[in-house]
């Protein structure tokens, strides 16, 4: 038995940690863990009158250009409930840098930081206004290029440039997949019919169905599976001695009606 049999993902690692990640130009994701000692130490710095109305908050700082987080860089406080351990932050700000702090906020507005995150930068979500004089390109020329990029679907304004060509491409093309239920019909059904023809004879004989040899087992039994098409169908079963001198033929008819073509869905009847 391997080490994984009893393994569960731990709730925490006994550390104080706040990690900030970028989902896209508009959203950040933060997860954290607070060591019990961190919170106790921070709380011990509170004045007695500050305990009432105390909030745990995630403080978002915009620190573009390498600024350090200060009261003035704070753009938002997200109040958290006790058990929260992660949060998606809608910063709505492409091409900006952020740091978040987890801390206690008193009713009087004093912020006591307990953890600070890494610094992240959101990606751009539109073409840059900056151009390089050596590689100058006018708005018109750039727009013409974008039209070639999108097969004519580009917006005509920079706002329309943003997402018109961002389409989902590949991931997981190697995955196998079970067939999805067809259409929205709750009564969908696929019907088909196989005939299992089986029998027994002298094990030394040769059995043929429609001229095709069939394997006869040592005990003389044999079986053939045949997909039966719609309609009436005559076929031949032939049994012959190994030298071929004696033979006997059976010509049964099998009819399948009303199922529709093999593999097709049954038509709905009311």
């Amino acid at each position, binding site marked *: 038995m391997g080490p994984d049999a009893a393994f569960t993902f731990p709730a925490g690692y006994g550390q104080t940690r706040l990690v900030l990640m970028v989902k896209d130009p508009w959203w950040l994701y933060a997860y954290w863990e607070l060591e019990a000692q961190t919170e106790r130490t921070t709380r011990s710095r509170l004045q007695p009158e500050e305990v009432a109305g105390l909030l745990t908050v995630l403080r978002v700082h915009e620190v573009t250009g390498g600024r350090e987080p200060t009261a003035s860089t704070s753009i938002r406080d997200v109040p958290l409930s006790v058990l929260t351990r992660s949060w998606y932050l809608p910063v709505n700000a492409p091409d900006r840098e952020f740091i978040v702090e987890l801390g206690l906020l008193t009713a009087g507005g004093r912020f006591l930081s307990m953890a600070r995150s890494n610094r992240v930068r959101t990606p751009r979500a539109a073409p840059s206004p900056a151009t390089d004089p050596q590689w100058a390109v006018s708005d018109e020329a750039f727009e013409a290029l974008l039209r070639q990029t999108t097969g004519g679907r580009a917006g005509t304004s920079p706002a329309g440039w943003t997402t018109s060509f961002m389409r989902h491409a590949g991931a997981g093309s190697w995955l196998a997949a079970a067939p999805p239920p067809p259409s929205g019909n709750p009564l969908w059904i696929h019907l*088909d019919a196989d005939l299992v023809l089986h029998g027994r004879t002298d094990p030394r004989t040769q059995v043929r169905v429609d001229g095709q040899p069939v394997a006869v087992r040592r005990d003389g039994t044999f079986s*053939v599976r045949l997909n039966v098409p719609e309609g009436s169908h005559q076929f031949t079963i032939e049994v012959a001695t190994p030298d071929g001198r004696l033979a006997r033929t059976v010509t049964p008819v099998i009819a399948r009606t009303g199922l529709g073509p093999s593999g097709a869905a049954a038509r709905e009847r009311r």
Partner: protein
Amino acid sequence: MSSRGFLALILHTHLPLVRHPEQDGVLEERWLFEAITETYLPLLARLQRLAEEGVPVRLTMSFTPTLVAMLSDPLLQERYVRHLEQLLELAEKEIHRTRWQPAFQRLALFYQHRLSEARAQYVERHRRNLLAAFRYLARGGWIEPLASCATHGLLPLLEPQPQAARAQILVGLQVFRQAFGHLPKGFWLPECAYTPQAAQWLARQGIQYAVADAHAVLFGTPRPKYGVFAPVRTPQGLAVFARDPAASQSVWSAADGYPGHPDYREFYRDVGFDLEYEYVRPYINADGSRVSTGLKYYRITGATDEKRPYDPEAARRRAARHAEEFVRARRAQARALSGLMAQAPIIVCPFDAELLGHWWFEGPDWLEALIRLTAAAGSGLELVSLGDYLERVPAQQPVEPTPSSWGQGGYSETWLNGTNDWLYRHLHHAAERMVQQATAYPEAEGVTRRALNQMARELLLAQASDWTFILKAQTHTAYAYRRLREHLARFAALDKALTRGQIDSELLRSCEAQGAFFPSLDYRLYAAAPRS
């Protein structure tokens, strides 16, 4: 050749490591088997045919280390041959069963032929070693091979622990060097997920280029003069090529792309699901759950549930017409661009290799037809690898691309959302422990060294973007959980044993047996002061 435009086709081959020595018949090993039968062998056969005919073939192909490991693994090679033989047996039974249904019997014969060809190709021609076959194509100049991350880790989401993200790149390059004998010119960023940090690591390793999605470059700073039709040079010195969305759209799009045409084979109608249970029981999954077998009898037909039988010849003709359409559209694009650009445009089309063949059964036919058409005189297009292009057009505009990916939404949301965000605290913690232990044991020997190397393997295998993708896609999720739990459990157990100073050799052996991957992995690349 005077050409109006360059066309670069990039096939990204990748599978997560699915190898289960401890158990027979694990469903997920079929991912590899299906990719070999439906994608790798058909691609190899076509590329070799073109090469033998002297048609100028030039593709760019990436190979992830997990796939390289599986293609060279004797256990999986053996299991693949067994899998083929099982399918051949099924195809033979099907030839009998469909005797009264000529439209289906033709298909059963078609599959029997394909499968026996596949077996001959795999066993006799390639002696089970497809990696050697790709290496041969690379040496002959028909493909330009690219390296990729060790286990397809999504770099932007690993970067909070930089050494762990960097190790994905370094291990990827080491595996490539062992497989192909030299460093690659370019690097495939998993999911086209570009970051400035990755550009810096790659440039420092001497890598010339990477591929990103269109908006990485279009939204780059300053504005790129030639849009996606010329690579840009990042401040770190890496050339970045951008995917052309118009070209990609016609192949990728489920709605209006080629693969959805009614003549093409319907992916979801497979005898593994359609036939009577006891009859197909020996050919589906060992646990009795139905799975695809690859024997599929219907064509897409249209937006109907009444599917018509598949006609391979009609489908092949359709693929040839789609290749003509594709070439015509690219030529028109190149012509329109010639008025806008002072240099010949490059149209960059990356695809998952497994899209061709596995999802789009006729994809390899389309590719072969496309290569023949571009090779024809007067096509106006020249097929190049990305490395060739850089030699032909050495100057690039300095641009800082924006971080992005080719996943849904264009950034990281596929791999960071409510279905999978819980994982990152565990991945980042494990990465941090790896760095701490590697730093604590700078020159470990014996079992300590083996334990550290195995920890690195388990960490890399847990970081595969495939698991977070699967959690998001909500298919095979139990398997993704299982793999994440296994790798992180083994990592934690080894970490604990190392810290206690008592490494249980039984534990170590079982981890090494199950998490076998990249035998020459050296944990020291995680040490805090990176060796250069």
